[in-house]
């Protein structure tokens, strides 16, 4: 079964068509990467997939249930998935409290152990009592990861989760994503500019350009023998914008 299924997703801002009838299917348990140049519509697509904004047309089905784009109605489904945005923000409270937030809103009272494990997973135990807003960029991303996974979502959607980070933090976060997927059998969809990252962690990769998915395939195939000329020039770093 596919964990994420999008059919004919279109979205315009003003008279600018950002997504053009996108079809996307992510198998359960897959680690799926979307690569593509800036402005291709990647973030817009992810936001639609996790119900932050409705598409102009098309349907999104997550774990077999169709998104209604009505906030209250989608709540149970949204609680089974998670999204880390390109610019995550911390609430003005401690790291520990930030990570406990999803448990609090679900009425889970004794989640201390879950919080502990989530923090440990990204190496943040030492900073647990610091304020979320004082974290460095890498620490903030790791905190966001802990907060997004503390409640064990079945679907994890990531938008550039290692952008602007140093190799140490990149490695740490990649390991966290890979092991989370393995341990929980979760489905991961990630958008990345970093082609090496897609190569390193993704089983499936899709190339997106100007609001369409040009092609998708096993990661190795996308990089070694792309079917479309544009994919080839993008992965070889020849695409000039």
């Amino acid at each position: 079964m596919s964990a994420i299924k999008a059919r004919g997703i279109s979205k315009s801002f003003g008279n600018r068509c950002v997504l053009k009838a996108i079809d996307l299917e992510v198998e359960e348990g897959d680690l799926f990467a979307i690569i593509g140049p800036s402005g291709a519509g990647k973030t817009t697509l992810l936001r639609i997939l996790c119900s932050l904004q409705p598409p102009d047309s098309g349907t999104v089905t997550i774990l077999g249930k169709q998104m209604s784009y009505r906030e209250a109605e989608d709540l149970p489904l949204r609680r089974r998935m998670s999204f880390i945005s390109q610019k995550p923000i911390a609430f003005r409270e401690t790291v520990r409290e930030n990570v406990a937030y999803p448990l609090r809103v679900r009425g889970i009272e004794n989640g201390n152990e879950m919080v502990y494990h989530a923090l440990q997973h990204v190496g943040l135990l030492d900073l647990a009592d610091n304020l979320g807003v004082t974290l460095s960029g890498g620490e903030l991303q790791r905190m966001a990861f802990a907060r997004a996974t503390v409640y064990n979502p079945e679907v994890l959607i990531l938008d550039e989760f290692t952008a602007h980070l140093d190799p140490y933090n990149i490695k740490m976060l990649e390991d966290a994503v890979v092991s989370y997927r393995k341990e929980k059998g979760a489905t991961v969809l990630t958008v990345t500019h970093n082609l090496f990252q897609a190569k390193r962690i993704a089983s499936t990769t899709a190339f997106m350009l100007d609001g369409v998915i040009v092609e998708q395939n096993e990661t190795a195939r996308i990089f070694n023998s792309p079917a479309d000329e544009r994919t080839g020039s993008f992965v070889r770093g020849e695409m000039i914008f």
Partner: protein
Amino acid sequence: MESDLLNVTLLSILVSGTATLLASSIAIPLGCYLGMRKFKGKELVRTVTYTLYGFPPVVAGLVLYILLSNSGPLGSLQLLFTPIAMILAQTLLVVPIVIGLTMSAVSTTSKDYTETAIILGADSWRTARTVIHEARIGIISAVMVGFGRALAEVGAVMLVGGNIQWHTRVLTTAIVLETREGNFEYGLALGAILLTIGMVFFYLMKRYQDKGMLT
């Protein structure tokens, strides 16, 4: 003389404090609501609110005076020249300020925090609570500015209070009186008390705010 001074000072604190409290309990929820909601005419509401920041206290006092005077629609309540009338007048002046400042405090934090809360599984009540919680520093500032306006204001309380000794005389109206009678030094001393009250209040609120920033 001394008990008079104490009386005037306490009444100032009581009137302006109550007005700020009353105004805040109306304006904070309203400001949060307006700040979080997207609706047609939001810009208009914002403009009107900002315009009311500068609403002349004497005019507010005059309007209330007309309403509360014996021949006015609320004349039967017999509130004119009472501290209650003064509280009402200052409440009118403080409400727009607290609404406006709360609105902008909430609007600036709103989008990012709303989305983060939603993503993490909050329902709409929880989301609103989170956004307001994150805006708390700005909301506290709104209350501080509101109290400052109430405390410093003289025109409205003069009109609807009448500056009656032992009854409706507050620091600002006492200063007017003393100045008229040529007691400049006493007037200045009253002014110093007024400033001290403001300072103590701001200091306490600031501490509360810093605590809010840290926890």
